[in-house]
């Protein structure tokens, strides 16, 4: 049995090209241009035309907080769901494997917006759950399936020999999974999970359809009263862009540290 070199096992991250690495010393990276451009545009609009731009910016901060709350709540819950699903998908137990696989297939087959609507209003018929928690649950159920696939791929990227070696040392399968496979898999899956995090933050704008007062909802409320649709969506887009650029930068830094630790 051949044990392959583990250092080559990475999953490419889609946003990677935009994030400067240490080797990328140029001043005008894609990330810098987008970030400075977005901040500059926002500052210019707010200073040059405080009415309506500053008014819009003053109207939305509590929406940004709600967007963060929904995103972080959903990411934690979906990680948990994803871990269970990922383990279920590689499990030899037919029952768990079946449940996890059906869950992934069903969720991936339904548009996110439809799922959010469905889970929110279906949940309301069965149990009494506050609106923000329902929105978080809806997002987490949707993203749990995708997280599960990321985690499954991460676990499967660890060479079989690792498991075999652990078993031959007398570990049980559970011990081997917990002490040998998962710690290695986490390094592999962290970057794509970071990517899912950004995708989730953007998709969290869909919960505005559930009357959750997130960033997009606040913007729409402002526009509906002032009729300043173009101006409002300009600000909303810039705010989302700045938040996701900061996040992608953080994820880039995290990736670098993981690679440095290897």
């Amino acid at each position, binding site marked *: 049995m051949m044990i392959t070199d583990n250092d080559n096992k990475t999953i490419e991250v889609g946003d990677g090209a935009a994030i400067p690495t240490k080797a990328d010393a140029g001043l005008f990276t894609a990330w810098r241009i987008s970030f400075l451009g977005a901040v500059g545009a926002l500052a210019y609009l707010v200073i040059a035309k405080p009415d309506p731009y500053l008014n819009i910016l003053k109207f939305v901060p509590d929406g940004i907080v709600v967007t963060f709350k929904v995103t972080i709540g959903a990411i934690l819950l979906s990680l948990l769901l994803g871990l269970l699903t990922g383990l279920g998908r590689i499990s030899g137990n037919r029952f768990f494997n079946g449940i996890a696989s059906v869950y992934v297939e069903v969720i991936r087959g339904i548009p996110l917006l439809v799922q959010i609507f469905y889970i929110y209003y279906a949940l*309301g018929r069965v149990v*009494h759950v*506050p609106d923000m928690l329902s929105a978080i649950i809806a997002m987490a159920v949707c993203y749990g399936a995708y997280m599960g696939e990321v985690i499954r791929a991460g676990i499967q990227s660890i060479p079989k020999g690792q498991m075999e070696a652990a078993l031959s040392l007398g570990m049980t399968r559970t011990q081997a999974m917990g002490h040998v496979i998962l710690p290695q898999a986490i390094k592999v899956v962290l970057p794509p999970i970071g990517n899912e995090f950004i995708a989730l933050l953007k998709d969290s704008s869909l919960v505005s359809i559930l*009357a959750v007062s997130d960033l997009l909802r606040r913007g*729409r*409320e402002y526009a*509906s*009263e002032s*009729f300043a*649709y173009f101006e409002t969506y300009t600000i909303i887009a810039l705010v989302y862009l700045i938040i996701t650029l900061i996040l992608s930068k953080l994820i880039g830094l995290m990736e670098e540290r993981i690679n440095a630790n290897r």
Partner: protein
Amino acid sequence: MKKLRMLTLLAAASAFVVAISSTAFAGKDLKTVTFATDATWPPMEMVDANKNIVGFEIDLMNEIAKAAGFTPVYKNTAWDGIFAGLAAGRYDAVLSSVTITDERKKQFDFSDPYISVGQILVVSKSAGNVKVLADLKGKKVGAQIGTTGAFETKKVAGVELKTYDEVGLAFEDMAAGRISGVVCDEPTAAHYALQRQEYKAKFKIVGKSFTSESYGIAVQKGNKELVALLNKGIKAVKAKKIDEKLKKKWLR
């Protein structure tokens, strides 16, 4: 050969785009007038089982059109953004239970009012003794985004406004117990609270309407021709008391 196929595809695509844009901007001669309507506001405008847009306002506009001599075309449009579409010229007018307000008058021109209604509060029966909106302090009250119901609710300090894309979603959320009340136009409130079987047992209407508003047809600023045409039709319909007949048919 491959190049030729690409060219054919390109030609087909551009023909498609031209076809779409020409239908969208046709009919500026006032023989046909396109009305945007958010058909989620029963009984004023809604989509029936046969996918037709029906309701009090649709019947009324058909009569107005007959009297004024034009053909109405109805376009089902989401309320949030319906005015942005009017400003952009995607349709000629908005016929969608639009209350004439000073803010809206700054942006658009309006026809003469054709009906007067008011905002009313609907609560779930378990809400206890609620007499006015201010009794729901510290609680959540729903309304459709950008409606006068939402604006009125926002005015009441201490009441947390939640805005929905459609008023039906607000009623469904109240049935689920997530909000304590819904504010909307009286005819619509009556439809949801008294005529929908599943809601009848759960909801009750609080008192009488607490505002007095007039619906008008919104058109682009400066479109005097269309306003004159609509006003002519409205006058004729009112003179024949057709609007009263339709009120009996659609409203309680």
